[in-house]
């Protein structure tokens, strides 16, 4: 999992709203930096990194909610939440499949067919979750979200 980037110029004595603007800019950039290849089911770590970055952005939006115009903040948070939820649905299946596949070798023979059937159901759900995620990670949609977050950051009540 990628570590959070440092926020340049972070200063505990500067106004809360100025810190908010700095943090949101960095956390938003992290989300978009991890957006390549998230639909690739052969490399589930890519999605994990974007999910963690989205969680960090969401947390920053929640921490600093009092620093932004309410309506603009609500609009941005809603979109980030939807992206986070779509990433989460896929990730839940990735983790479950990985866990169950890891148990197959030590599962007694009579239970193996049922285990494989469960894994296959989860793979189907994984594909469905990936299809549901696809519109959220289209470059055009991400670009719009990025613009929205930039405007939000500039609107911090300094």
């Amino acid at each position, binding site marked *: 999992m990628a570590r*959070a980037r440092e926020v340049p110029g972070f200063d505990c004595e500067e106004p809360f709203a100025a810190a908010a603007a700095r943090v949101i800019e960095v956390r938003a950039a992290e989300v978009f930096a991890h957006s390549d290849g998230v639909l690739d089911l052969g490399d589930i770590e890519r999605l994990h990194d974007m999910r963690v970055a989205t969680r960090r952005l969401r947390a920053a939006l929640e921490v600093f909610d009092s620093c932004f115009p309410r309506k603009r903040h609500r609009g941005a948070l809603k979109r980030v939440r939807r992206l986070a939820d779509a990433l989460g649905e896929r990730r839940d299946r990735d983790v479950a499949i990985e866990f169950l596949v890891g148990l197959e070798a030590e599962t007694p023979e009579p239970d193996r067919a049922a285990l494989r059937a469960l894994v296959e159901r989860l793979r189907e759900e994984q594909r469905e979750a990936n299809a549901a995620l696809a519109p959220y990670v289209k470059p055009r949609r991400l670009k719009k979200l990025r613009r929205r977050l930039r405007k939000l950051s500039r609107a911090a009540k300094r």
Partner: protein
Amino acid sequence: MKARRVEGLDPAAPLRPNAARLVRARLDELRSFAPIALEAPASKTQHDMRIAAKRLRYALEIVGPCFGPEADAARDVARRLQGVLGEIHDCDVMLPRARGIESIRERLRERRERLFGEFTQLWRDATPVWAALERALQGGRRA
């Protein structure tokens, strides 16, 4: 689970006092779940506590530099709590799905029990970490 609203934050005031207020609220929220979550079958409260641990962790990730190494230690404990409670939740979600596969269900039950033991131990060990964080929040630190 919605985060509890933090009263008295002031966008024009310096980050440090606002951050202290916020972290204290997130820590209180996390601790409020402990009495019930420390009972093994309380899966719903354990799930809520995981979300509270996540909120504390990410709040500390953002404003931790204002409170020094005590905040780093608290963030690490919150991260580990979030992790172990997340794995307990994964077992709770998987158990009903594995109906009819008794060997897998048995593994999941064993795993949950072991993880619950790790959680209670981690929570016990966290007491001095939270106390140190509270002292750091009162005193602040030069950034």
